[in-house]
């Protein structure tokens, strides 16, 4: 690595060194409490997957360039040069971590591995060694924001074709629109994903609840966050914020996508609208009696996978349980409890890497497969697209014999007209 490249990467590193990050980088006592916390280590048993080991790869570079002892006496200061080899280790650490933050719950100092890995991801971007597909997906989202007029007509045509599917789930009155788009003054802006499964059930439930809603032109998922690019994360987020402000909505409801929810909830700043996950909205409709569901619809035992970014990192824990207890008399909790739930193994952009890392994703999430099977449930439901994909892959790989379903689809299928 030439000096110019190293200097540029160290500038990126320095830009991440706020007080919280310095605390995370200087506090670890290597107590080992995090050892068993990572699903990758728990499943595969390799030291490199322990949270503290991942931290150490970043921490040693920090010591070399940002701490006096590391600069003067690197061998004693456990300092490490930023080199091509170090970048390879940073890649391995960052893209085997799903950012689930289970280790943070166990750590006595609350050290945030996801935050530390954000340094690794940023350095990889700076060195142009990040996963190319994640950057392409982020750039595609940014492009949609820049050139909405070019893509608007195609999107509206696609949405129009879906309306008959919505009406099959919930009949609407003549003159009503099954999927309203671009409604100025709507109360709620729903931000979905590209697939019909993310739009049709949600639309049926909004219509059943009599919600004054409108569908966003943009997809919810933030690939800028997956690849760890703060600038693109903000650009992708701002498309939705601007749309919400233009339409003067009171609430932005994020579809079943964990990262999208956490980014919108925690990074959008103070806005003139509330941010909700679709699970919170459905729970609210049930509590207020705005929708009713048929409890006899699902007869098999059900368990629920808490998406890390929605539950542990987003605080939405009671709401899915409220829904599930109205959908079934046989809802079975996984063990351990939601705060300590095992990650599905697909977060942090790993699912989006596709088949390239399928083998790793399956091996590293063995504990998740075991956790699901211990419940004896036949239906495994969740509220995140990433988790759904990963759990479906695990179901096939480990022959778990469950049916993987989206929670919103179950609510829509059980709606009572």
């Amino acid at each position, binding site marked *: 690595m030439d000096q110019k490249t190293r200097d540029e990467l160290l500038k990126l590193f320095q830009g991440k060194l706020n007080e919280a990050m310095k605390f995370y980088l200087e506090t670890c006592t290597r107590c080992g409490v995090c050892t068993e916390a990572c699903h990758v280590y728990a499943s595969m048993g390799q030291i490199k997957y322990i949270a503290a080991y991942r931290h150490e790869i970043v921490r040693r570079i920090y010591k070399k360039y940002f701490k006096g002892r590391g600069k003067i006496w690197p061998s004693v200061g456990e300092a490490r040069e930023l080199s091509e080899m170090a970048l390879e280790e940073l890649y391995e650490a960052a893209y085997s971590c799903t950012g689930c933050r289970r280790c943070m719950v166990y750590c006595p100092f609350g050290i945030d591995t996801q935050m530390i890995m954000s340094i690794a991801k940023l350095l990889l971007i700076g060195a142009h060694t990040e996963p190319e*597909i994640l950057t392409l997906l982020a750039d*595609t989202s940014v492009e949609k924001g820049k050139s909405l007029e070019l893509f608007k007509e*195609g999107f509206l045509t*696609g949405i129009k074709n879906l309306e008959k599917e919505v009406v099959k789930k919930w009949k609407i009155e003549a003159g009503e629109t099954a999927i309203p788009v671009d409604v100025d003054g709507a109360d709620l802006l729903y931000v979905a994903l*590209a697939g019909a499964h993310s739009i049709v059930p949600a639309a049926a439930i909004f219509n059943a609840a009599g919600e004054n809603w409108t569908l966003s032109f943009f997809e919810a998922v933030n690939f800028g966050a997956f690849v760890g690019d703060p600038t693109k994360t903000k650009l992708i987020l701002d498309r939705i914020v601007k749309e919400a402000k233009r339409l003067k909505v009171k609430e932005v409801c994020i579809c079943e996508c964990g990262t999208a929810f956490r980014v919108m909830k925690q990074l959008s700043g103070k806005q003139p609208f509330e941010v909700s996950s679709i699970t919170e909205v459905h729970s609210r409709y049930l509590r207020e009696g705005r929708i009713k569901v048929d409890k006899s619809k699902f007869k098999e035992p059900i368990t629920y996978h808490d998406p890390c970014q929605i539950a542990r990192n987003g605080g939405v824990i009671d709401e899915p349980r409220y829904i599930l207890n109205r959908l079934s008399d046989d809802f079975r909790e996984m063990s351990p409890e939601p705060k300590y739930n095992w990650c599905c193994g697909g977060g942090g952009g790993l699912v989006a*890497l*596709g088949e390239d890392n399928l083998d790793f994703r399956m091996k590293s999430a063995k504990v998740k497969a075991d956790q699901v099977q211990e419940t004896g449930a036949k239906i495994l439901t969740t509220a995140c697209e990433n988790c759904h994909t990963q759990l479906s892959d695990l179901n096939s790989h480990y022959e778990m014999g469950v049916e993987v379903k989206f929670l919103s689809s179950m609510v829509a299928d059980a709606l009572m007209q």
Partner: protein
Amino acid sequence: MSEDIKVDKVMDLKGMPCPMPIVKVSKGIKDVEVGQVIEAITTDPGALADFPAWAKTSGNEILKTDQQEDLIKFYIERKA
């Protein structure tokens, strides 16, 4: 297959979860030579906005979009 476009590779992306249609087409386009065409078949309504944005970003060209009742077919020429 579109009558006026010679297709070199067909990709069935129907019903795939987010973001697999774009992930698959990004890889699939590299399996054909520059100047060759892939036919990508999807059911995602959002693809009508996502695919043109992806083509612009990746430097490829959508020659034609054929929208049927429940299917959307993109004819994409590899340019880069």
